[in-house]
């Protein structure tokens, strides 16, 4: 079953022709409307009319997360504000969020991309889509939502939390698809099991899971406990949100909606474009975006591409799962966390030093997150209440910055091991390879 067979199963030459037409329009539009990127192109000595073939994209300068920080909040918007109908945002490195703006057409395209994936997962207008991604600035909730509405399904905007209520709606409204992070799917599956509900009591057929890395074992657990087929969904706020790519379940990897998003894989050091099958950094160019197009945006996600026709009949390029990151970003409990954000927070608290360590682990398929931080020298600690009040203060400030909770452990000054003068900052013991 295809949502848009003409695109999803297009001849490669037709797809490339469409991509080139759209790329030329997008670059001309970006050059015209976004002074920051025009300046980059001028500095690189490239004009929109220099884009004559798809390979000419390699002449264009990259965009990075730093471009978002420097042009916060709307410096990368190309459309006039009167045409922007929606804002989303994700966390940035310096504490400033990366803000994205969408026009009506952008939202329709987003819905189209997610609709293709939901159709891959067997959903249609008779389906009931249960969305347990968070609603709000995070693109997860409203991204899945718009896909469900596009296929004409009945969408339940549950948002995350209150697992008992989730289970009630899931069973009583006979939801056929669950959309959430894999770890939350597991929480729901375990709650169902505890309530004595097996696959036969639940109408679910499929799950659309993303926003965090997960293991094969976890996938198998969720699939068997809920009696569903799990599909992966990939995306990022800077490019649009979830739906850039979705897995069909027949062949390996995720199908990229490449009429909307043009992928390249580069060597993050030499910046050379790499061929199919070679791992490198994923670079994405929007081909049909108005609100905030991005050109050669460096995602920092490591994966590889394949252009082979898939067993499902689709011809669109597929991306592998994400093997890691090129920067220091951590995804903890589905939330993007940069060590620099934590540094910003502890820098504002006089009782702490800037010597800290972030410990990320995995217990029963859920992330654990602990911050160890050294206390300031000469700090007067007389009682436990003082330490607990300080812990509360740090915990609150971190939650404000990151949006998730964190266990805090205080250490005496000078106790964290230094590596060449600098404390080793992150210890991530999670293993997603088996």
């Amino acid at each position, binding site marked *: 079953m295809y949502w848009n067979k003409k695109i999803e199963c297009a001849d490669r030459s037709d797809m490339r022709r469409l991509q080139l037409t759209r790329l030329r329009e997008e670059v001309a539009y970006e050059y015209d409307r976004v002074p920051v990127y025009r300046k980059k192109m001028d500095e690189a000595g490239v004009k929109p009319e220099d884009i004559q073939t798809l390979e000419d994209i390699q002449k264009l300068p990259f965009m990075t997360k730093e471009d978002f920080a420097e042009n916060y909040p709307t410096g990368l918007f190309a459309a006039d504000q009167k045409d922007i109908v929606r804002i989303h945002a994700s966390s940035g490195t310096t504490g400033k969020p990366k803000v994205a703006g969408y026009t009506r057409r952008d939202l329709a395209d987003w819905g189209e991309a997610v609709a293709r994936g939901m159709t891959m997962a067997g959903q249609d207008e008779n389906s009931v889509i249960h969305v347990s991604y968070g609603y709000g600035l995070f693109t997860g909730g409203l991204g899945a939502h718009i896909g469900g509405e596009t296929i004409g399904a009945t969408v339940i905007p549950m948002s995350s939390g209150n697992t008992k209520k989730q289970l009630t709606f899931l069973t009583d409204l006979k939801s056929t698809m669950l959309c959430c992070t894999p770890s939350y799917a597991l929480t729901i599956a375990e709650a169902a099991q505890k309530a004595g509900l097996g696959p036969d009591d639940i109408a679910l057929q499929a799950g659309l899971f993303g926003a965090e890395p997960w293991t094969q074992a976890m996938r198998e657990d969720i699939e068997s406990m809920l009696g569903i087929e799990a599909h992966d969904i990939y995306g990022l706020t800077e490019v649009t949100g979830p739906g850039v790519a979705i897995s069909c379940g027949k062949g390996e990897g995720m199908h990229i909606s490449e009429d909307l998003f043009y992928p390249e894989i580069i060597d993050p050091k030499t910046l050379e474009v790499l061929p199919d099958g070679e791992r490198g950094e994923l670079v994405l160019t929007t081909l049909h975006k108005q609100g905030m197009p991005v050109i050669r945006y460096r995602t920092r996600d490591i994966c590889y591409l394949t252009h082979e026709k898939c067993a499902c009949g689709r011809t669109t390029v597929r991306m592998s799962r994400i093997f890691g990151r090129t920067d220091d970003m951590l995804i903890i409990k589905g939330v993007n966390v940069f060590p620099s954000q934590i540094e910003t927070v502890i820098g504002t608290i006089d009782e702490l030093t800037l010597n800290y360590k972030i410990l990320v682990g995995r217990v029963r398929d859920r992330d654990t997150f602990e911050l160890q931080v050294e206390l300031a020298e000469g700090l007067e*600690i007389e*009682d436990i209440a003082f*330490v607990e009040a300080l812990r509360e203060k740090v915990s609150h400030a971190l939650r404000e910055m990151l949006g998730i909770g964190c266990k805090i452990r205080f250490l005496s000054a000078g106790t964290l091991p230094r590596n060449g003068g600098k404390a080793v900052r992150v210890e991530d013991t999670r293993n997603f390879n088996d």
Partner: protein
Amino acid sequence: MTIKQLTIFVENTTGRLGALTRILAENGIDLRAAVIAETNDFGILRCIVRDPEKARAILNQNGFTASVQDVLAVVIPDRAGAFDAVLQPLAAAGVAVKYIYSTVTSDDGEAVIVLKADQQKMAEEILKAEGIALAGEDKLF
């Protein structure tokens, strides 16, 4: 009259307390009294030592968060009801006790209780008025 107490933050990890006592031993610092208030991941060691400022400096140099405070050393006879006689007048005056611990009993049948109140000055006056003796550092060493 008050005495000085040394307070040390101790992470609740295996060997950490041993590292602390090793430093005290190597520097000839004698603990006259010691008590730990503990939570899941850290403890606070309160102790009475002969030269608390020197001990603090040594501990700070060795990676321990240590500080020094004033506390009361209350001398009471070693018999039933003596402790109660200390606490009742404080409670009646609305003075809250933050923590208490006992030191080694002195040779002449008296006990010395280390006491920290939320209003130290007032506690001192009340106890004096009740005829309860407060010890200086000389009595403890």
